[in-house]
């Protein structure tokens, strides 16, 4: 009985997340009749990959896709490399200014980047990273950093200090202990951070379009124009942009469970 209620709950929650995506796909692939039909059909009547295909035929879409990948991967690396040590500092040391630091890194999220457009662009021109993948990756890192820092720090807090101490005693330097003990144990958090960084970077459109002219990321390339496109193209574009993130999450999902059932003391 309980099990059944539980199962139903699971199914409802899955449906709740999946159905909207399904409807999006239905709109994107169902031909323009579906988009404007009434009452709307819930089954795919006539699948058509036409609007999809037309996307993929657009000049510059593949370089943009590659660039997006490059940016997202860089962003992932940067945010973990910069965020995890800071997260460790927050978790393990009580230092003056820890909370100030927390607030400070959150500023990047608390202040809408969109509003920073002009000075941001000018700064990037001065730094010589305007219109480069690196530049975009860096600003995306700034956006993902609060995630990296806070998520890893909350996980590090859950790792018994004794394990680290054991590593020290057995000859690990602080860094080695961090790498060999803390980081693997916090793997789910690191994976979550990687996902956040990837997704943030992949979907970020504002900074990407302000900081690039010719070398736009896929999202900037598509999203900036989607709003003026016919509804069906918007749906198709939306769907197309979901895919890489979803595939990425799928690929790393098992790291999210790395410590499942192992981490008892």
């Amino acid at each position, binding site marked *: 009985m309980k099990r059944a209620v539980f199962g139903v709950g699971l199914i409802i929650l899955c449906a709740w997340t999946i159905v909207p995506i399904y409807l999006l796909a239905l709109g994107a692939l169902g031909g323009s009749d579906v988009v404007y039909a009434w009452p709307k059909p819930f089954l795919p009547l006539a699948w058509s990959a036409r609007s999809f295909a037309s996307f993929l035929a657009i000049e510059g879409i593949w370089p943009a896709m590659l660039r997006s990948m490059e940016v997202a991967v860089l962003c992932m690396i940067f945010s973990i490399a910069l965020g995890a040590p800071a997260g460790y500092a927050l978790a393990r040391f009580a230092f003056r200014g820890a909370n100030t630091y927390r607030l400070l890194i959150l500023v990047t999220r608390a202040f809408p980047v969109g509003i920073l457009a002009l000075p941001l662009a000018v700064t990037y021109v001065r730094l010589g990273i305007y219109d480069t993948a690196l530049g975009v990756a860096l600003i995306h890192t700034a956006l993902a950093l609060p995630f990296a820092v806070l998520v890893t720090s909350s996980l590090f807090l859950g790792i018994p200090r004794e394990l680290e101490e054991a590593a020290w005693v057995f*000859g690990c*330097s602080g860094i080695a202990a961090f790498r060999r003990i803390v980081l693997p144990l916090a793997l789910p958090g690191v994976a979550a951070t990687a996902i956040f960084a990837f997704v943030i970077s992949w979907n970020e459109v504002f900074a990407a379009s302000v900081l690039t002219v010719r070398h736009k990321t896929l999202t900037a390339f598509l999203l900036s124009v989607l709003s003026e496109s016919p509804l069906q193209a918007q749906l198709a574009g939306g769907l197309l942009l979901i895919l890489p993130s979803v595939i990425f999450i799928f690929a790393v999902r098992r790291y999210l469970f790395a410590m499942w059932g192992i981490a008892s003391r």
Partner: protein
Amino acid sequence: MADIRIDAVRKQFGAMEALKQISLDVRDGEFVALLGPSGCGKTTLLRIVAGLETQTSGRVLIGGRDVSTLPPRARGLAMLFQNYAVFPHMTVRQNVAFGLQMLKAAADRISRQVQRSAEMMHIEDLLDRYPAQLSGGQRQRVAVARALAVEPAVLLMDEPLSNLDALLRLQMRAELKAVLAEAGTTTLYVTHDQTEAMGLADRIAVMHEGRIVQMAPPVEVYRKPRTVFVGGFVGNPPMNFLKLPVNAGEVRLGALTMTPPNRVNGSVVLGVRPEDLELAECGFGFRVQVAEPLGPHILLTGEAEGQRMRVAIPPDRAVRAGETVMLRPKLAHIAWMDAESGLALEGE
């Protein structure tokens, strides 16, 4: 040379003083057991030696070098943690190999050492399991194996065998002793098992409330406790203490008259171990309340001179609860203590 010298170390946790001026020397290759009641500061002391805790004051020297300011890894020691601290994300094999890998040992040396320590700890069948798949005792043995595998110059062990059954403990104890002696490892070993301490240690340091109250070879600690506390703490069952009045330098106990060491007035404490009391024709009266047959001997609990007392008698003597028997102490094994300070009286 890897002697440990703990020099006037104090440790304060907030208002609570966990270690009060501890000084202790462990000679190179020596095996010192730390014995003391729960919460007396044993773990804290070990952690300070390992560099995991910072002493409030005092110094720690290893091999003559002041390591007080060195990080743990630079102190060249291995430690076994009271709650094991085995790495949950590594297999048993990886756990045991860990220390050696940190030392960048050659692969074949690692695998040899891992095999050896694992065999010694009887966990060779478990090498590919994860700690979560082990029983408590197995986990503890993994921790011991991990510490032994590195063959450290200095080994700190915090109750390494507490979760093992008696038989296994006996075996491990013997093997530990052999291995450590052979390697000449300087060992500081916390245990609450006195037999272990007695059997393994070159010297025993008895701790009490953050102080070391006696440090001596096992027999001396057993035979010549420096304080009432040590006598009461070491030995199982513990030493009996009878507070007796002193009259003109003499003490009367039933039919017996004894002479405590000089300079005593008022009253004195007579300490005698349960096994140092014999049934006798002529002695003092002991009212038996409980008689427990414990295998090699029968343990009697009862009262003498209105004070609680325990006596161990050979298993073949039939004594019943409620009976009153006559006892006499083996005079050579009597310990006299000051009634006020609880310190042993000299010049026995």
